[in-house]
């Protein structure tokens, strides 16, 4: 197996079937311990893990040749490279401004390492230009742990205190430190401002703000004046919209709105809402410089001074087009999967009676050829008639599902409607229970409920039907004395194709779609339906009373 490791210096692992680790060399054990292999590495990607010393490292996997089913996974530590990339990004826009900042200011990223330091830091700690990038936080601040860094980044916090910072040469220098978390969800840093004890007050917080704005690389963040004109612009905003700062600063933010929203005056309306409510979050189409559209996730926050005067707006804008496309694709997949499942279930449900019909007709034909007595034919044909009826009922149920439960509301008295389809008594204390609805659709609802109640009632058991007013609603209850519904199935009975687990081999027939159809119609009427089970089952339907009927009349 050792031959599979192409170098003993580089951390390497031998991967066998089903991505199982077959063996690992000493360097890999030093780095990972017995820790598992991340799937990202096997795909040639990067993943962050905690090294044996507890500090996170970023590793990139590289899969080497296959030797009779085994692969070699070599891991490269790209921690420093990532820190340098972050440093370049943070320095790119605002490095010049931070360079002249008198206070030493540095930033620590999620790897627990320094990703930005201004020249004042290098001077204080004695590092050469750029050499402090990638240095672990505990190498400067002593007792710091990876867990501490993680906790600080997880929840906003700010800590200030006195202590000592370790210099490059191992000596220490007394400092006061002010640590705060900056950055958005996507990328967070700990910004650290240092100064010698007893020095003048902290300088302005602008350094942190500049770090924050530059560091956020997938959220456009910019300010608008109270008149809606763009006042500042960051690199991510430029990337998302195509406008450079020079082109857009001073322009009304309306230029980012799509034509129809601009015509409808949405830009002014949104600012008015943000001014009134403090903050406005929305997703909408926005227009980029080339005239194209992108789906934007926007947060607009009103900025007020201490006197409460509106000073402008902060706008955070994120191109959510990819997210929207992904959500749409997922919805289409889900719909296709649901449709396939439906068709498979229907096919299965139809094949059972079809199998009986086919077998019986073949048997009848065979007996007819043999000239057998009509009496045997009659018994077999009775079964056939039954099965054909069942098939027809299944097809009807299917068609009811296919019908959109659109409602053309008219006043309907529920007592009269139910009395028309139920031979037994309809109990009520109200003179009439009017709802606005589609009489045919509502009749279908109660036909299904009543048929169900009868189907699951024991011989001689009674079904009680009540129609009443409760608050502003009409409530219909249908109670049977049957076997009831197990508690964990009370909601599933409305999902369609449900078969009770307590039926004891008794097939109730049908596709189990009746209650599903009833629920869809009730919902389309703005009502709700639920089941209750104790001794028997009680189904409740609640529908809003027709407009203009007072609950008490």
């Amino acid at each position: 197996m050792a031959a599979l490791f192409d170098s003993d210096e580089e951390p390497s692992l031998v991967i066998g079937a089903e991505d199982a680790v077959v063996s690992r060399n000493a360097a890999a054990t030093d780095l990972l311990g017995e820790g598992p292999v991340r799937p990202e590495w096997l795909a040639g990607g990067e993943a962050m893990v905690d090294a044996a010393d507890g500090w996170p490292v970023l590793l990139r996997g590289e899969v080497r040749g296959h030797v009779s089913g085994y692969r070699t996974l070599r891991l490269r530590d790209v921690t420093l490279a990532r820190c340098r990339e972050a440093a370049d990004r943070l320095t790119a826009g605002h490095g010049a401004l931070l360079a002249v900042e008198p206070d030493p200011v540095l930033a620590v990223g999620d790897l627990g390492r320094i990703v930005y330091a201004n020249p004042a830091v290098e001077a204080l700690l004695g590092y050469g230009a750029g050499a402090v990038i990638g240095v672990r936080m505990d190498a400067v601040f002593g007792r710091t742990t990876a867990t501490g860094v993680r906790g600080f980044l997880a929840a906003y916090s700010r800590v200030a205190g006195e202590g000592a910072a370790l210099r490059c040469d191992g000596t220490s220098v007394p400092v006061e430190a002010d640590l705060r978390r900056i950055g958005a969800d996507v990328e967070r840093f700990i910004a650290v401002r240092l100064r010698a004890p007893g020095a003048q007050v902290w300088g302005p917080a602008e350094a942190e703000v500049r770090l924050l704005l530059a560091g956020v690389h997938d959220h456009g963040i910019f300010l608008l004046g109270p008149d809606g004109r763009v006042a500042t612009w960051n690199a991510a905003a430029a990337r998302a919209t195509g406008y450079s700062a020079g082109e857009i600063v001073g322009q009304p933010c309306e230029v980012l709105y799509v034509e129809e929203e601009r015509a409808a005056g949405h830009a002014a309306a949104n600012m008015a809402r943000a001014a009134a409510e403090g903050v406005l979050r929305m997703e909408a189409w926005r227009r980029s410089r080339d005239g194209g559209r992108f789906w934007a996730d926007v947060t607009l926050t009103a900025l007020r001074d201490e006197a409460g005067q509106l000073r402008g707006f902060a706008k955070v804008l994120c191109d959510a087009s990819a997210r929207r496309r992904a959500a749409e694709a997922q919805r289409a997949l889900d719909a296709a999967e649901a449709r396939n499942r439906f068709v498979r279930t229907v096919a299965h449900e139809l094949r059972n009676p079809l199998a009986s019909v086919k077998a019986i007709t073949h048997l009848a034909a065979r007996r007819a050829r043999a000239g057998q007595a009509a009496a045997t034919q009659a018994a077999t044909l009775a079964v056939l008639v039954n099965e054909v009826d069942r098939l027809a009922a299944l097809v009807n149920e299917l068609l009811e599902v296919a019908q959109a439960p659109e409602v053309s509301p008219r006043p309907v008295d529920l007592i009269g409607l139910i009395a028309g389809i139920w031979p037994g008594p309809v109990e009520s204390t109200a003179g009439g229970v009017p709802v606005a609805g589609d009489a045919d659709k509502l009749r279908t609802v109660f036909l299904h409920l009543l048929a169900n109640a009868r189907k699951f009632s024991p011989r001689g058991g009674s079904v009680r039907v009540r129609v009443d007013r409760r608050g502003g609603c009409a409530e219909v209850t249908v109670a049977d004395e049957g076997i009831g519904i197990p508690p964990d199935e009370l909601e599933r009975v409305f999902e369609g194709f449900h078969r009770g687990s307590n039926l004891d081999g008794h097939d109730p027939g049908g596709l189990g779609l009746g209650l599903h159809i009833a629920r869809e119609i009730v919902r389309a009427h703005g009502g709700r339906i639920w089941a209750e089970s104790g001794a028997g089952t009680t189904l409740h339907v609640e529908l809003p009373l027709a407009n203009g009927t007072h609950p008490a009349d």
Partner: protein
Amino acid sequence: MARILLIEDEAALRHVVGEVLGEAGHEVLLADDGTRGLTMLERLPPPDVVMMDLFMPKIGGRAVVARLRANPRWRALPVVLMTGAVYDATDFPPAGSYQVLLKKPFDLDELVAAVTSCLASR
């Protein structure tokens, strides 16, 4: 002439398959679900063939087959599975644990042939 245990929850199908196999000269024991089928297997002398539906309430065909194959007394019993389901590997017993798969709706000749082939393979 063979003894056949038919486990099928569809009453009409149980009736007609029972008649057809009866007319073909077989003795047919009827069970309307997996639990009753297993009880009959325990209490009666073993049949020559077991025919069963795949989807049944409580104990389905997949579980019945598993129980048969786990018991030395029934391990060699030929099994004919009947189903109207669209093939879905997770619902089926493992290949090799049953002898014939009859897809619903089936012909009477297919039904009789399934039994005959099971008897011949014993």
